[in-house]
């Protein structure tokens, strides 16, 4: 492999914009991106392998970190780290290829071989998962990460607690019949908050529905969340959507829609806009392990790669798509490996490790913007709550599995241990925060409940920029009907 690349400069030249092909050959990019996180603030390491270590081929002059004389060392490192499958792959080329024989194919030449051999459907080893904190909230000494300030850490922790408390109270409110529906982010607080912390508000969010923490981080108030869940006249969505379908133009958070994965190709379009406008910002879009089976996921990754859009795809792989486990959702090593197939740089992180999520997303954002490219992040986590208030997950998964993740793997307590160990957080801080958030939420619910529902006229606006004549006609007819049959209609909606 190494020999071939050094001897086939012309071929490499042909391949330079086709690093997806190269990826198939040298199997490098995931290894490369995992070691990227050794690039921490001390700058003393020499195993610098940023994405651009494929630079003899990708020749990415936009990357300031490009190591110009890296080919020999870079490749030898990768050889050391190669999996067995990789060695098999190499041997295909080393033993049987005719070095001078290449197939001149549109988009770049491909080496020829006389050996009939298929690429294995499973790698020898699974892609590793980047982690900074161990299960006990201890820093893993060898891990590469950026320091997080006390201020930032505490803001993250406070937001996680706030999100948790909001989930608890809204879940109860639904159980009491005060709101029609709810969906918690239990178990995924770290992905929500730590990813949000790595972005700026100028970055555009296209959420799925289990990322209210991102909106919380950006400053959406508890009253605003509550208004949406109660569908009152202060709900920006004017009471038209079910609870949890938040959105905020001001905070660059696109309104949630229920269909799965539809936001993904849209995120590419939004990112293309940022690219064309030369903005110092990217798009982030979220989805789950189930969503990655939708056609829109594949469309989006492919479009993002081809159109070189600065978009970060964050997959919350929480093990369950409602009742369907990942074993019935996909084959292969999860979501992260799909990135390379599409020519998208990717990384797998421990989604219950707030520091790992923060660092991975921060680095991804930097690359997405400076190199104008998409990044795929697969965050491994677990949905410790039910899918929604319409679901009972004990019907399809063992209670002890849920308990294990809820207790031993809880992302919030893991982060808390780290914050406490730093001496930044006390038991008193904790109870004070929890009770004040609780109070604020109960008050918000009272306010939201007392508020009027949106007026009937809001039913007919915003279908188009101006109501069409059929809508005027239907509104008139409906109002006459209401006059005749007022008891047929909910009295709380002002007519």
């Amino acid at each position, binding site marked *: 492999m190494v020999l071939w690349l050094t001897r086939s400069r012309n071929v490499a030249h042909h391949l330079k914009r086709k690093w997806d092909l190269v990826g198939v050959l040298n199997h490098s990019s995931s290894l490369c991106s995992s070691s990227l996180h050794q690039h921490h603030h001390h700058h003393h390491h020499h195993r610098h392998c940023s994405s651009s270590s494929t630079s003899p081929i990708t020749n990415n002059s936009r990357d300031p970190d490009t190591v110009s004389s890296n080919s020999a060392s870079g490749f030898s490192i990768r050889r050391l780290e190669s999996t067995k499958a990789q060695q098999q792959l190499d041997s295909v080329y080393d033993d049987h290829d005719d070095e001078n024989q290449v197939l001149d194919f549109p988009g770049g030449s491909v080496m020829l071989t006389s050996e009939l051999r298929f690429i294995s459907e499973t790698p020898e080893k699974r892609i590793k998962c980047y982690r900074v904190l161990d299960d006990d909230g201890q820093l893993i000494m060898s891990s590469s990460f950026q320091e997080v300030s006390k201020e930032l850490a505490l803001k993250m922790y406070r937001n996680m607690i706030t999100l948790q408390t909001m989930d608890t109270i809204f879940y109860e409110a639904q159980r009491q019949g005060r709101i029609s529906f709810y969906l918690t982010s239990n178990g995924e607080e770290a992905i929500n908050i730590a990813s949000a912390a790595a972005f700026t508000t100028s970055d*555009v969010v*296209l959420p799925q529905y289990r990322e209210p923490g991102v909106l919380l981080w950006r400053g959406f108030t508890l009253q605003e969340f509550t208004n949406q869940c109660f569908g009152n006249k202060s*709900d*920006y*969505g*004017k009471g*038209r*959507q079910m609870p949890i*379908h938040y*959105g*905020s*133009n001001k905070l660059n958070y*696109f*309104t949630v*829609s229920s*269909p799965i994965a*539809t936001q*993904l*190709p*849209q*995120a*590419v*379009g*939004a*990112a*293309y*806009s*940022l690219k*064309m406008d030369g903005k110092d910002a990217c*798009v982030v879009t979220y989805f789950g392990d189930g969503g990655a089976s939708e*056609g*829109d996921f*594949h*469309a*989006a990754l*492919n*479009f993002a790669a*081809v*159109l070189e859009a600065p978009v970060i795809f964050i997959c919350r792989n929480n093990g369950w798509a409602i009742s369907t486990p990942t074993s019935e959702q996909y084959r292969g090593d999860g979501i992260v490996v799909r990135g390379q197939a599409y020519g998208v740089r990717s990384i797998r992180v421990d989604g219950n490790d707030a520091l790992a999520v923060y660092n991975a997303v921060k680095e991804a954002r930097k690359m997405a913007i400076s190199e104008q490219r998409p990044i795929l992040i697969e965050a491994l986590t677990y949905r410790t709550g039910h899918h929604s208030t319409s679901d009972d997950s004990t019907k399809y998964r063992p209670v002890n599995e849920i308990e294990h993740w809820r207790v031993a793997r809880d992302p919030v307590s893991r982060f808390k241990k780290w914050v406490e160990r730093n001496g930044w957080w006390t038991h008193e801080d904790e109870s004070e925060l929890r009770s004040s958030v609780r109070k604020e939420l109960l008050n918000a619910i009272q306010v939201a409940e007392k508020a009027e529902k949106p007026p009937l006229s*809001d039913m007919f*606006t*915003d*279908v*188009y*920029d101006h109501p*069409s*004549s*059929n*809508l005027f006609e239907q509104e008139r007819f409906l109002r006459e009907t209401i006059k005749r049959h007022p008891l047929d209609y909910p009295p709380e909606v002002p007519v």
Partner: protein
Amino acid sequence: MATRLNRLSRWHSVFKRGYSTSADEHKLQRSGKTVNLFTAINQALSLALETDPRAYVFGEDVRFGGVFRCTTGLADRFGKSRVFNTPLCEQGIVGFGIGLAAMGNRAIAEIQFADYIYPAFDQIVNEAAKFRYRSGNQFNCGGLTIRTPYGAVGHGGHYHSQSPEAFFCHVPGLKVVVPRSPHQAKGLLLACIRDPNPTIFLEPKWLYRLAAEEVPEHDYMLPLSQAEVIREGSDITLVGWGAQLSVMEQACVDAEKDGISCELIDLRTLIPWDKETVEASVKKTGRLLVSHEAPVTGGFGAEISASIAERCFLRLEAPVARICGLDTPFPLVFEPFYMPTKNKILDAIKATLNY
């Protein structure tokens, strides 16, 4: 093909008589050149890109000019970052277009054939159409225009012939527009591109090269949701859109020889549609015939029939006639049997008059 060439000559005669109600009529005389439909669309796209730096044209094979040549020369003129190919994936094209439009751009997406729009159905119906409403007008993708060639072409079989307009007419939040000629196409397409709502613009592919007429070179728009009476008459009202109008026009001419005076209306925008113009006409003639290539059952003709029955029941002298495609998949060898042809229309006109 011979009948189609007849159609073409009909069109020339129609336009020489100057039916257009457009305010630009005088300019048409002054600065127009005779161009075909794809060239008129090319002009509209060119003007859209020229007048708005935030306009983008994209889709499968768009960069080299598109399989119907509608985007010829645009990438050279406006650069390949504004006029570009996408991967072969309709849901991706529309989803991408929604995101681009939602950021305040004019996203002009091409779906290569209307027959292939279905993978994008979810993006169109659940996303584009509801984008404004569901966000309480915090976000919208009104800058999105989806252009797509539709309809029979003589040899297209199942998958190069369909007319899927009715699916989209069932979706509040969308606008569906179909032009009948080059002049109409240019003005309506520019109106769609600049309309602040997501729009589906169905281009009659049979007319891309066959229909030619004088088209003003300058920038002009024709109003959406406004039908146009293109032939006045007193005995029966005929309503249609797109390529079907030329067939209906021939039927009107033949009916005239039998002393029947037909009023022909081009609906132009299917939703939100101009009921008033159709209603006024039917109140005058007392009879209505609707014709489209799409299968009759559940076609948009059914909606027009029902609405007019509601509004004009006492004025109707006969049941509303629907001469449409049959309820089979669009068949290759049997296309001449499937189609709502001139004589089927003519027979229905006579039957309605004799009811």
